[in-house]
């Protein structure tokens, strides 16, 4: 009954237990690069980093939701490209207003995602295959829409990724952060989120509890797809270009961010906020190595090593804490 003090103390301890390992990894990395790369620990670098992660972040949030429900979405990169290409086509060739074009792009992403979810949940096909198929199909669609050309969309989208005056961060970044928070909230406070966790933990128990599993799965995949669409928008705005090749290999980096953040590929476990930390780890690593001008083999080897190390430390820390 030492109430408040104890409970706030416990809250801090719990926060540390949840995020401590990752935060430590981030701090260590930042300190290291700060020491060896000139101008790494400057506001400009940090802002640059902040403004370059929104797309990955948003995709990783969608991926986290899908993974937690026991699924997987390999098509994120392609769907991102497809949405972006549709956006470009609607804006440049059809001259639609921005808001209409972007809603169209996001809606297309959500449809692709929903289709993924519907096929895998209602026909019980492994999500890996369905989304691998979608990876190819959406990429093909992106080439088809753009005729395999990058398309310049000009600066009409620019406001989205331009730094906002007083803070220096872009609207994209703010949106991405709110989506992280929203995702965490969705996971914990909504029926959909709890159902997702339950399905990921034991789909058979959920089915036997009389809960439908198809509809929530479709919704989750649709959310993931929609977020890919949004990420496509963010990326196009940053590059002022839509590119049918964008997002190649993004599935791996998004899943990596999730897994670094502790989301299990077998479903049932995960946290959107921790995924965000995972994104940060990867992006600090990339930026730091680029600023050092490390050679490509070294970059590769260090990236691989650090990813393993980060997760290793996190798991050792957790084990010793228990």
């Amino acid at each position: 009954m030492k109430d408040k003090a104890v409970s706030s103390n416990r809250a801090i301890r719990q926060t540390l237990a949840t995020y401590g390992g990752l935060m430590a990894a981030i701090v260590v990395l930042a300190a290291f690069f700060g020491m060896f790369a000139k101008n790494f620990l400057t506001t400009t670098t940090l802002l640059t980093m902040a403004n370059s992660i929104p797309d990955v972040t948003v995709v990783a949030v969608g991926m986290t939701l899908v993974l937690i429900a026991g699924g997987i979405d390999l098509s994120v990169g392609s769907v991102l490209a497809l949405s972006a290409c549709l956006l470009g086509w609607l804006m440049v060739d059809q001259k639609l207003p921005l808001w209409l074009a972007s809603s169209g792009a996001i809606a297309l992403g959500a449809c692709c995602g929903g289709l993924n979810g519907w096929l895998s949940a209602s026909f019980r096909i492994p999500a890996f295959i369905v989304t691998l198929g979608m990876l190819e199909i959406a990429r093909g669609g992106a080439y088809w829409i753009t005729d395999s050309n990058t398309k310049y969309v000009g600066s009409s989208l620019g406001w989205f990724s331009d730094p906002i005056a007083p803070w220096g961060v872009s609207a994209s970044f703010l949106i991405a952060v709110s989506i992280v928070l929203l995702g965490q909230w969705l996971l914990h406070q909504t029926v959909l989120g709890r159902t997702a966790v339950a399905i990921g933990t034991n789909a058979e128990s959920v089915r036997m509890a009389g809960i439908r599993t198809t509809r929530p799965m479709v919704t989750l995949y649709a959310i993931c797809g929609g977020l890919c669409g949004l990420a496509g928008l963010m990326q196009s705005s940053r590059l002022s270009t839509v590119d049918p090749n964008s997002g190649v290999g993004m599935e791996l980096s998004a899943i990596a961010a999730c897994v670094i953040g502790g989301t299990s590929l077998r479903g049932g476990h995960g946290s959107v906020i921790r995924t965000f930390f995972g994104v940060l780890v990867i992006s600090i690593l990339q930026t730091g190595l680029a600023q050092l001008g490390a050679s490509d083999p070294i970059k590769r080897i260090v990236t691989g090593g650090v990813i393993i190390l980060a997760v290793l430390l996190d798991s050792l820390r957790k084990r010793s804490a228990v």
Partner: protein
Amino acid sequence: QPSSSNAKSTPKSSEKPKIALVMKSLANEFFSTMADGAKQYQSQNAQQFELVVNGIKDERDLARQSAIVDEMIAAKVQAIVIAPADSKALVPVLRRAKQAGLVVVNIDNKLDDEILNAESLSVPFVGPNNLLGAKSVGEHLAKSLKPGDQVAVLEGIRTSFNATQRRLGFEQAMKDAGIQIVDSQSANWETNQANSIAASMLNAHPDLKAILAANDSMALGAIAAIKAANKTDTVQVVGFDNISAAQQAIGQGKMLATADQHGDQLAIFGIQLAMKLLQDPNTLLEDRQTPVDLITSGNVAK
């Protein structure tokens, strides 16, 4: 606005300028030669400038290349020499670089003039003309073929500007010589993909007389496919880039010709131009075309 704060920090004559070389991919021999050339040049002129070399994992990852440019701005380099992975998508970020007071030089793959105009930006270009290079390779091949012969093209990644230029170059040369292109597919610059696609081409078109590959890696794949099909004597291969493995293949007569863009010199030209611009910001911005040489068994390095 970051631009204003950065503008102040441009060349202080006391300090060595730092130049960033941003490339498409260090995983490719052409670009690693380019990087090596640049590094060697830097070590010979170590007192004049510092060099940071960066490339992306995958030639298609425009977002990453653009992020690298941003990161280089943040790292306060004074000049960026870039081989853009895409001729359009990199323009906006380069505009930001210019606004931040950096010197920007474009090498290898020319930025799109239209977009440069739209972004009201002028960036000097140093690099080869891929179309003409490919055309000269094609013309060399045409000499050993008859009009009406069938040939096939292995293209690079479709979205890449160089891939398009080289394909157009090949096509023009073939058209001029009256040779028929019966098949043209993309093998994404890769040896193994080129191998299986070339094998399929050989099966689908038994009368094929030559395969024109948009880079040497794909040419090597085609050579292996031809060998597996036992058609070494009837089907010829040309490539582009003059990588060392291709030189060996030409030396052994397995490949007819390739084109050398002098990758090692390319970056150096870019750096020299950047240095000149740093010393005298009013240098006239002029594109500079670098030579592309035809390499055949006659002039291949042994």
